[in-house]
């Protein structure tokens, strides 16, 4: 069970019911649960979509696409059944927020899936939870059973005459499955190989039917928007960046934890005030602002508003909300290597630039960290990464390339400090992994 934290600057929307016992359906009902879906049942589908559009809600998985817009792409008429798919395959390093929602407030996800289904005219919704989160899958399975027992799901929901089924599904360990087309493949019982687009899932998705895919936090936000109104939600954040975000503060911080802060909250304040600053008398070296795939920001670049547009302007991405803080005792080459080891491990091998690129970059970084790097490798890493960008079916290639480009560009000196067989200046026992040193 993950520990909960709090800070006076928090605005509790999605995290409102954390620690309130809301896994129990009766308790959830006491806490305004299932009111939003009842309201949505009385609304026209287009009115639901407009409400979500106007709220400024953008995808919390990382891409930051307008949720209402995504829903509006689903055709009104379809010969094949339509589906809603909740992405709970949380696995971007640095991200641990959906876990808290599933653990404390599973019905909010079910309710969000139901509202999305009403908006697009789907009769089935799937909630996909990563395999490692077994205890959360158990919580979700019970929550779904309870919703059926109350008549909230299944036939004639809430006595409305409409049918809506909610199902759970589980993964078995794969980062790439968090990508929406690979997620559908996985749900269909296959390897999580991404699909080429177009057609987009909104038109051809699960089993060929139009499918809406949203992150768990996105869907858990929807009931609050329907109840509180688009205007209220939009005003919490800056323009076009409605609402709040669950920021997962991790790394070298005095008070790491998952905090719900308004969109646009200042990153410097997030690190030094909310997160309690850097412990052990250390200084900030860099921060990865939105999960491992986002380019790092240096200590001089953190005076930035944490919303999608401002972070993009600062040259990075708000991503999944995983803020990883790195102090000056850490070696950036090693950090870049660990990041690349991850992407190399998770690349499905379908697209050559990603399969080969991640492997070459990992090997180069390993050699580099062990003191066997060549000066030209620094530019080579940059060149390789830049040539992976935009050349793969799914964004995993970009996710591996983008942070590498930033590490090399912003911390070139640290790479140079590893040259000519010098031991890593940060490693007490010397670099563990060795590859042959090139002449």
């Amino acid at each position: 069970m993950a520990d909960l934290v709090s800070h006076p600057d928090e605005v509790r929307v999605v995290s409102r019911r954390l620690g309130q016992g809301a896994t129990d359906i009766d308790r959830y009902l006491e806490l305004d649960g299932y009111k939003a879906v009842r309201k949505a049942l009385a609304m026209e589908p287009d009115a639901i979509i407009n409400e979500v559009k106007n709220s400024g809600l953008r995808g919390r998985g990382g891409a930051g696409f307008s949720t209402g817009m995504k829903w509006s792409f689903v055709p009104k008429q379809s010969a094949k059944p339509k589906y809603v798919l909740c992405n709970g395959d949380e696995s971007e390093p640095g991200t641990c927020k959906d876990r808290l929602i599933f653990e404390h407030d599973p019905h909010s996800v079910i309710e969000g899936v139901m509202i999305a289904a009403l908006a697009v005219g789907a009769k089935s919704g799937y909630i996909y939870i990563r395999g490692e989160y077994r205890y959360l899958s158990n919580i979700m399975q019970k929550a779904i059973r309870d919703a059926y027992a109350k008549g909230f799901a299944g036939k004639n929901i809430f006595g409305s005459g409409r049918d809506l089924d909610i199902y759970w599904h589980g993964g078995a360990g794969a980062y790439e499955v968090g990508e929406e087309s690979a997620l559908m493949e996985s749900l269909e019982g296959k390897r999580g190989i991404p699909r080429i687009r177009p057609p987009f899932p909104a038109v051809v998705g699960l089993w060929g039917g139009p499918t809406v895919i949203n992150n768990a936090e996105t869907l858990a936000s929807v009931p609050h928007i329907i109840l509180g109104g688009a205007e209220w939600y939009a005003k919490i954040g800056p323009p076009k960046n409605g609402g709040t975000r669950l920021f997962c503060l991790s790394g070298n911080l005095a008070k790491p934890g998952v905090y719900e802060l308004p969109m646009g909250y200042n990153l410097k304040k997030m690190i030094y005030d909310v997160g309690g600053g850097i412990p052990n008398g250390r200084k900030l070296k860099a921060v990865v602002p939105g999960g491992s795939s986002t380019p790092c920001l240096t200590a001089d670049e953190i005076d930035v508003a944490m919303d999608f547009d401002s972070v993009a302007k600062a040259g990075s991405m708000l991503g999944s909300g995983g803020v990883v803080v790195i102090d000056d005792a850490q070696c950036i080459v090693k950090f870049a290597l660990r990041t690349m080891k991850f992407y190399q491990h998770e690349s499905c091998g379908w697209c050559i630039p990603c399969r080969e690129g991640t492997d070459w970059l990992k090997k180069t970084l390993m050699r580099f960290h062990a003191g066997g790097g060549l000066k030209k490798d620094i530019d080579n890493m940059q060149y390789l990464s830049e040539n992976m960008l935009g050349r793969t079916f799914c964004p995993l290639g970009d996710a591996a390339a983008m942070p590498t480009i930033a590490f090399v560009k912003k911390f070139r000196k640290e790479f140079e400090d590893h040259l000519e067989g010098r031991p890593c200046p940060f490693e007490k026992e010397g670099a563990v992994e060795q590859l042959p040193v090139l002449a």
Partner: protein
Amino acid sequence: MKFSDEFESRFTEMVGHYPTKRSALVPTLLYAQDEAGFLSDEVIAEIASRLDLTELDVRNVISYYSMLTTKPRGKFNVQVCTNISCLVRGGEEILRHCSKKLGIGNKGTTPDGLFSLEEVECIGACSWAPAAQVNYDFHENLTAEKIDRVLDEYKNKGTQ
């Protein structure tokens, strides 16, 4: 091949969730592995026949997912995360400590079959790093002393 009643009722329910039988494959494999310890030839043949797939189809899927294994593992699979959030808070030290204590390397299994050790990718415990999972249980904010206690508890549980 005999699975528990709980497995059977969940399987029956799950197959009804989807328009195609195959869709139940990934979660079914994981639940089957939890009962059998690993995905043996026998388990693979059984699941393939239940879902109208070839054994090759099933093996293709198994090789994609990192949690699925066709080789036996220890009763308690110790999975230590060393990804970025854990890395900067001593995840590698925890892994090395476990390796020393258990006397096995990454992906190794103790001779008594009680423990196996695995370096894993992010398990979603970043704000509570460093972290590890033993089977499905999370152990967070780890120190060498804390993981010692955790492993001792499993050892007692396993040898009782």
